[in-house]
């Protein structure tokens, strides 16, 4: 069974005739070829598939695609506007907050949603905010610093 859904994806209104069983992650990756969001576990435990739906960070592997109908979705690919990287993306590079890069899109999307909700997080709030996103490479310190830098820019 398939359902025709319509939603906003990275600023564009799109339609998709999607299998009812397909996850949101799979639809984004396979039907829209946006492969920045990764499947790390398929069970909502690692955060590698994090995207922003209606302003909230969401594990796309846990949601069925049909539920996207009428929503507004931003993926990592939607953060670059007119060729300009998002301040978080710049900060992740500047602070070496990435290594293998597999968790990075999800981590940045979680941070993005967090900073929208709470523009001035404390270090502990940042730690807590990204604690659902697993990274095996970095030890998190530089990720926390990268987010802190952007949060501090918000203050200015």
């Amino acid at each position, binding site marked *: 069974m398939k359902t025709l859904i319509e939603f906003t994806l990275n600023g564009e209104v799109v339609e998709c005739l999607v299998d009812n069983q397909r996850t949101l992650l799979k639809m984004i990756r396979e039907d829209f070829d946006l492969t920045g969001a*990764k499947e790390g576990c398929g069970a909502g435990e690692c955060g590698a598939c994090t995207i922003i739906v209606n302003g909230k960070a969401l594990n796309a592997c846990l949601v069925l695609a049909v539920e996207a109908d009428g929503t507004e979705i931003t993926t990592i690919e939607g953060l670059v506007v007119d060729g300009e990287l998002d301040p978080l993306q710049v900060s992740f590079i500047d602070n070496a907050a990435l290594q293998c890069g597999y968790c990075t899109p999800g981590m940045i999307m979680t941070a993005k949603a967090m900073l929208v909700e709470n523009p001035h997080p404390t270090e502990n709030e940042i730690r807590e905010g990204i604690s659902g996103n697993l990274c095996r490479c970095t030890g998190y310190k530089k990720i926390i610093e990268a987010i802190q830098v952007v949060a501090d820019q918000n203050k200015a």
Partner: protein
Amino acid sequence: MKFVGTSVKRVDGVKKVTGSLKYVDDIKLSKMLYVAVKRSPHPHAKILSINFEKALAIKGVKDIITGDLFTKRGGLYLEDKNFLAVGKVRYRGEAVVAVCAISEEIAQSALEFIDIEYEVLPAVTNAKDAMKPDSPLVHPDLGEYKWAPVFFPVPGTNISNHYTLRKGDAKKAFETADFVVENDFYVPHVQHVPIETHTAIAQMDADGFMTVWASCQSPYAVRQALSEAFDLPLNRLRVLSPAVGGGFGSKAGTTLEGILIPFAKKFPDHPVKLTYSRQDEFENAYVRQGLHARIKTGVNKDGKIIAVENEFIWDGGAYNEYGVNIAKAAGYASAGPYDIENVYTDSYCVYTNHPVGGPYRGFGMSEIHFGIEQNLDMVAEQIGIDPVEIRRINGMKPGGVTGTGEVVEVAGLMECLDIAVEEIKFYEKSESTSPTKVRGKGIACGWKAPSMPTNAASSAIIKLNEDGTAHLLVSAQDIGQGSDTVMTQIAAEVLSISPEKITIRTGDTDQTPYEWQTVASRITYSAGRAVFEAANDAMNQLLELAQIKIGLSKRDLELRDGYVVSKIYPDRKVAISELALGLTFEDGSGIHGPIIGRGAFIPPNVRNADKKTGLGEHPVVFWTYGAQGIEVEVDLETGAVKILKVVSVFDVGKVMNPQLLEGQMEGAIAQGIGTALFEELMLKDGKVLNPSFVDYKIPTADDMPEMVIKFVENPEDTGPFGARGVAEPAMVPTAPAIANAIYAATGIRLNTMPLTAERVLNAIKAKNND
């Protein structure tokens, strides 16, 4: 220096933060077929029959294969493995039947229509039991297998490698020792847990040319293994590793790629794909081997250790093709970073019906140091000196002799130790603000050598472009450690052009030159040296042409900011862009042609150790030394251990990129903390009980302490700009330093990892009841 030693930003940064880097699972090809694998439910069983007719009849199922089709065994050091089980299964989860279908869903759903009849065999799920004479044999035909001559399997037993080290006369020395301290330690299996699971795609063209895309650390090793297993000539087999989402050893050698080749052969022009689920990753990717260690130390009253005796029993699991070398590496390092005259070590890699052991960051060092460094603290306590002093007395110093009898010229251990002691304020007592919590500080040292064949080679090519930019080609893989950036920095430094002017290409056996493997913390050192040589070769060619053009001798010329410049008359110069395609004269004629720099490297003079004694003048290329100081807080009511601060200090030879190096050290600490405190692959009767992130926790941002990272730079002569490897050594001291800190806080000594709250609490209770 302009670029080496500075925090050049990651050259792969933009692709990674924008999500545009294509990992293997992101590759979309037309006509893709998908593979699913039926796995063994038994840890040890004979395969009596396989019936897959019903599954084959399902619409969309293209083909089904079993191990009988490909019975040739393979393996990196010991040929004991098939991609699909042949005759019997040796661990729970072993691949038995593979289904190829037009969708992942169909392939998966077909599995339940495959009937396999097994005759269950007695299983052995403890490495110590596996060494007993009456144990079931995991590989009864071991004697018929092939192995590299530096390993010592014992046919007729489960011992896949028995490494021996015999230095001096340890037995005699123990008789004269003032004190002897002997303890047993156990380190369980753990998982690498890269966030990207293993995945591969294979496709054969109509003319029989095979292409494999693999999330692998070592495309050349995968090519070699597949070539051997399937009789494919190396020039007809291309392996690409476009990006690796975390390796830590799990994607070394070859893993799942071979399952795809038969299907790719059968369906030309169809890419065939297999991706591990997270459960597969926990159960069927390599695991870090379990270790039973017994360590005996003889010491004199003055603190001088005169003898050690070690027995390491490695639970290598069902296949030990890679694990045999972990037993060997552990044997080499078994004296620890200490200068000890008499060393007696037996290190056994043992077959069990457990998941397959393999390389994991540290390659045995984290495991053995958990025992070595705790035993040392116990020795110190016994003779009444402090943990720092015992390490100062015995720690390796320049001119010291290793356990394998090698005189070392470079050893920055004492400097590392001093900095760690100072930064952790080892001698200052720190008090918890809570009456039910106690604090303690621990110290541990560590060392590691690259565990690789003595002749492991690297190569690099630099092509200069006519606008003065360059391409750098290597097969060293950036698995997150930042090698693309560091390789670029090395080339930029020698050529004196900015890193932005260099494009690095890696991971393609058709296009990028040979690299043995991206393992063993050898890439900055070995591939880096090859890049250094390639850049120097290009530079020499430029200087040759420039001396004709400028009319000044080559020795008075140098590269500077995109020009060949006279050292004496700086205004006499020629742009390298002008020479990139060769030198053209006024009459229109030209010489030389394009500048292509070639670099190749094998670590010099590394020779096999003596087979019986394990002794050798230079059996490993170098040792990397370091020390960590760690402060913990233990909750006496719950047993929970909180890491407050970690100081990590290593002698890296040369800091190539401070920011990236710090990242390596911090990541190593995270893995060290996870494995020390809570990570364990729970095994019962061969079954993995916790194959998910719900039940197998890895550290999150919440678990990380304050980290202080410091470096010492005693150059490695043969390394590029003096660099040596450090990515693995960096996690070696973490677990024992935590254990020693827990002892300092509570007086309890824990010999079994992980140091869970439950284990700590039980030990506290037991101590209080004494």
